[in-house]
């Protein structure tokens, strides 16, 4: 093992980029789970669809990165509405496990479809011109684009957190998470709220996909690969707290980067090891509420 401080710091900054994606995805998963009681196995697939949508917009219509950042979440959100209304809605009265099975099947079907259309190989998506180049941080050259992903990811997560914690809409959402019957009795249309929450959660994954397109290879498996790690992140953070899932996502990205620098072989397993430790020491997760 070679303890090169510059290398460690550099990898940790890059780890933060992954951490931003973990945070965005686990945030969406938590919100959906909180209100719908469904673990959205298809979350990774929506992330992947976000990247493919950005790719298609650029290839077919010549629409660049910045408009895609607005358009893609709208498209993915609309797809989310369709999925919630036609498929997920019929399962609310059943055991939660059926929601998991349904979204797993959905993930297979969508990923299979993308493979049929685009093939298994990665597709290129270029970094927007305005974010080319890199900044010298002293210990590393940080590409502007990666810096943008970290900052934008954090701002995005924090604004979602603010909406949920500090606005009347968020208050209704939190109330419905707590006691849907009571909220409905107050005249709030809970079914519509469930639909929009699902749409918003997957739209977040869609934005993540657009942001990932220039730095990860745009391929059909990208969603499945990341979603399993995000499940571990969610278990570690516990689902009770929005802020907790943001923080956990970022911290685990950092840790992954650190491990990559000091003991590269373990970098793909470190998050799972942390999960095991957390489960033994604090089964409900770092920020989880008591069951």
């Amino acid at each position, binding site marked *: 093992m070679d303890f090169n401080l510059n290398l460690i710091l550099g990898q940790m900054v890059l780890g933060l980029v992954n951490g931003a994606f973990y945070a965005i995805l686990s945030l969406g998963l938590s919100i959906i789970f909180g209100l719908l009681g469904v673990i959205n196995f298809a979350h990774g697939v929506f992330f992947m669809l976000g990247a493919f949508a950005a790719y298609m917009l650029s290839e077919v219509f010549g629409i660049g990165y910045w408009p895609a950042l607005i358009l893609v979440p709208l498209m993915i959100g609309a797809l989310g509405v369709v999925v919630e209304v036609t498929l997920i809605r019929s399962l609310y009265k*059943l055991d939660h496990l059926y929601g998991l*099975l349904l979204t797993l099947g959905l993930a297979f079907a969508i990923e299979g479809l993308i493979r049929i259309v685009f093939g298994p190989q990665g597709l290129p998506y270029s970094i927007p011109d305005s974010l080319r180049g890199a900044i010298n941080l002293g210990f590393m050259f940080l590409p502007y684009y990666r810096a943008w992903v970290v900052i934008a990811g954090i701002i995005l997560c924090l604004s979602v957190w603010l909406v949920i914690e500090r606005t009347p809409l968020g208050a209704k959402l939190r109330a419905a998470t707590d006691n849907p019957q009571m909220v409905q009795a107050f005249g709030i249309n809970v079914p519509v709220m469930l639909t929009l929450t699902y749409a918003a959660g997957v739209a977040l994954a869609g934005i993540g996909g657009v942001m990932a397109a220039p730095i990860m290879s745009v391929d059909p498996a990208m969603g499945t690969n990341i979603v399993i790690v995000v499940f571990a992140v969610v278990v570690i953070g516990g689902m009770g707290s929005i802020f907790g899932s943001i923080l956990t996502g970022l911290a685990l990205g950092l840790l992954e980067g650190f491990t990559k620098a000091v003991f590269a072989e373990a970098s793909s397993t470190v998050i799972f090891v942390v999960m095991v430790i957390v489960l033994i020491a604090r089964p409900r997760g770092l920020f989880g509420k008591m069951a």
Partner: protein
Amino acid sequence: MTLADMKQMTPSHPMAETALHPLGFSRARFILFVVTALAVVIAPFVLYPIFLMKIYCFIIFAVAYNLLLGYTGLMSFGHAAFWGMGAYLTAYSAANWGFGFEAALLTGTVTGAALGLIFGLVAIRRTGLYFAMITLALAQMVYFICLQSPFTGGEDGVQGVPRGSLLGLVDLNNDWNLYWLVGTILLGTIILSNRVVHSPFGQVLRAIRNNPARAKSLGYNVDRYKLCAFVMSAALAGFAGGLKAIIFQIATLTDVSTVASTEAVLITLVGGIGTIFGPAVGSIIVLSLEHYLAPFGPWVMFTQGVVFVFFVLVFRKGLLGEFQSYFKTSL
């Protein structure tokens, strides 16, 4: 209706059933067992024995999975780890340590059980959806370890696994000998699973599935029973994986990947969660689908996804489950 409610539809007095019929089966199940046995005897004259043996291994794998999901109510997404590591260790011990057929298979089974104990100790701390996510994450960890460890042979896998012979008497390199052995093991596994489900131990598991709080208040150590069921299921999954490695003479990364876990889930769902013969029906359907769609590449994945969604929405109880409630019997 919840998963638990659904299970309560299975007849309530298994002791009365088991006392009357051969091999511990109820009448309906005994008929199905005879049909299965006949199918095992006739099938190799019609279909390719290697393909049939593959189906049988997956049936045993799904029986192991169903023991956990169907009769204990725990949904694992990590069974690929037991199946895959069972396959690796069976293959490795046969290829590199000169283990014979029985010793190699035992090694795979013990590996599954040991790994199951570790997974179980961690995962039963949470229930429901968390349990599913934790087992999935643990299995992914095992996958990454296999990807990097030299003993698995990376992308090549462990190849050239000798099949050896049964008790030093029957040469298993002969596909027919091996077929009759695997067929017998399959029938034995079905008898065994029926026995376990209807044993006092199985009764406690079902009580835990239907109402864990009540089982606890009756004085049962719920976590201990869950762990026990988990280890049993993992051991049987490791055994099935080992058998597959012997038949195909190879163990690969595919066996430890998420795909294998989801296959177990899909087979169980299609056949019928919590039915004795569901895994057999599910394996035949799912593996045939894969086999005949294989030339069309990604269509396999797409079709599997559609089958998943279709069964969750329309045939949630699985094929045998639907039969069961229609004919008011248990299969």
